[in-house]
């Protein structure tokens, strides 16, 4: 069920001569893709089917909805200020994406292109921070944000994730792949450090930047526990906090409504992915050819 056969093995032999071969190759590739699609898409399909079930349908039984309806989505939109919460999430996500792309790129640059004393120590230190369990540092983080007077603000939600070490490492790995000649050429042009960073390195790591955008956006969009700790006024709630109000201890949990809410929250992420996926390949080579 789990381990899909390495798709590499089914890769079409595109460079081999012979038309028939190419067609079987393409068909094989699509077959592999479709197989993976079935394996990977399960939860979303299930969630979607639940979200369009009619009110009199049994949500716990049966495979396909017998009375499909979009009514549940309307009810989600009516049951809490969806747009306001989505707006709050967008603010946090936009801050997170900008700060992460800029600062993670800067950090990754320093860790990859310069030979300086203490680089190894700092690098090890950064990797080490990835290993701390969130629960053990959660309360201290909260006290710090509180001390800074940022409780119940979106800034407070954003701040701890403003520069994630993970993103620094992604950027570092991307900059390591930039050939030294490129950098030297820029130096000969008289470009200073910042210019080299902004004009040479950033454009050649578009793929990695797209990945950083994606991970930081997802992080901000999906986070629940931290925003909950920081925010108290429901006007400031993010989307994930709002969604939790659909399911509760004292309310009746309408599974259709919960599923519709979850789908509504998923859609922007899928759209973002669709929009970004073209950029993932813009590495050193391709990014340069296009510019």
């Amino acid at each position: 069920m789990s381990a899909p056969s390495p798709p590499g093995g089914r890769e079409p032999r595109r460079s081999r001569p012979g038309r028939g071969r190419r067609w079987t190759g393409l068909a094989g590739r699509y077959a592999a893709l479709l197989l993976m699609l079935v394996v990977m898409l399960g939860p979303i399909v299930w969630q979607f089917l639940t979200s369009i079930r009619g009110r009199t349908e049994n949500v716990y039984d049966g495979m396909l909805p017998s009375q499909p309806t979009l009514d549940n989505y309307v009810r989600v939109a009516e049951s809490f200020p969806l747009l306001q919460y989505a707006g709050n999430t967008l603010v946090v996500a936009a801050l997170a994406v900008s700060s992460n792309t800029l600062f993670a790129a800067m950090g990754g640059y320093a860790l990859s292109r310069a030979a300086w004393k203490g680089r190894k120590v700092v690098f090890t230190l950064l990797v080490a921070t990835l290993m701390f369990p969130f629960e053990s540092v959660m309360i201290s983080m909260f006290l710090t944000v509180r001390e800074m007077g940022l409780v119940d603000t979106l800034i407070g939600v954003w701040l701890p994730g403003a520069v994630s070490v993970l993103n620094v490492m992604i950027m570092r790995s991307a900059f390591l792949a930039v050939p030294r000649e490129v950098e030297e050429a820029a130096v000969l042009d008289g470009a200073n450090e910042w210019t080299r960073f902004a004009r040479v390195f950033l454009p050649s790591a578009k793929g990695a930047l797209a990945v950083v955008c994606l991970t930081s956006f997802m992080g901000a969009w999906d986070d629940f526990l931290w925003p909950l700790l920081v925010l108290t006024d429901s006007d400031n709630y993010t989307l994930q906090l709002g969604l939790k109000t659909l399911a509760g201890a004292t309310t009746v949990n309408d599974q259709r409504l919960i599923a519709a809410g979850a789908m509504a929250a998923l859609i922007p992420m899928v759209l973002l992915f669709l929009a970004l996926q073209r950029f993932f390949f813009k590495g050193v080579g391709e990014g340069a050819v296009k510019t």
Partner: protein
Amino acid sequence: MSAVDEAAGPKTPGSKTPGSKTPGSKAAESENGRAARREAAGRGRRARAAMEADTGLVHRSWWTPYLFLAPGLVMVCLFSIWPFANTVILSFTDARILRGGTFVGFANYARAFADPGFWVAAGNSVLYLVVVVPCLVFLPLALAVLVQTKIPGIGIFRSAFYTPVIASAVVVGLIWQWVLRSDGLVNTVFLKLSIVSEPIPFLTDSTMLLVSAMIVTVWKGLGYYMVFYLAALGNVPASLHEAAAIDGAGTVRRFFSITVPQVKPMMLLVGTLSAISALRVFTEIYILGGESGGPGGGARTLPFLIRQVGLGFAGETGYASALSILLFLLTLVFSLLGRRLSKGDET
């Protein structure tokens, strides 16, 4: 063809900073004529050379790296290092939730070492790492290769493969339970086909539960790390594959002789990240095996133990902190070990 790619590199700044073309192309031209395969190997070496760039034409002031790192370091100090220092101190106390403790020396650590549950959990964590990391280093790469080509509708497939990453844990748990239950999809099919005579206890046996959780981890990780590899694959010149194909190298061979060496830095990163997350696994075991962590707690991992001990209203903050530190040390050991194994490839 390879020269085109190489020469194209410097054009990036060229379009913005006029005049850079000439020297850049020259550097690239010197590469001209080298065999594609040798170039693949050379790339890694060059990347390493870049690390020592200060000896060449590139000069920097000593404080420049600090300046570039400053925003990241500030955040890390505030939100990681500082809380961590707190955890270290708490691990030497008998603090409980909402109650400060007194210094107890190494008592918490001694207690952990004397607890058979701790060793089971540590063993499970290590087992998890050993199984999951190789899967997550290679399978997402294979998936990335599969979705790399530009064929109609590929964007849809890429996005679809990413959805497990963003699906809610509750729904993921429900679906996988539906698949793995004793009366679930897999067992029903296997029983019908007489592959097994008794349902496989995917969720009710500690070892099988760990395996099932690993399956879910790998399944979620496929899409996540696929994205990392897509970015890295962008750096692999198509010319390499074409040259090798002309030499008669098959798909599988090209995967191992060209793709793998080219994305090696990314494989190291993915290896590190997946190792860290494997050692921190909690959710998968919780959603499949319930709050006891498998029958008799036999499928508990270290993070699972930490939560059981530290959270909730009887929370033993001190002991949980000690367990956190032990988990941290275990992670450190494995990341150093991983470095040893891949020595000389990076940094």
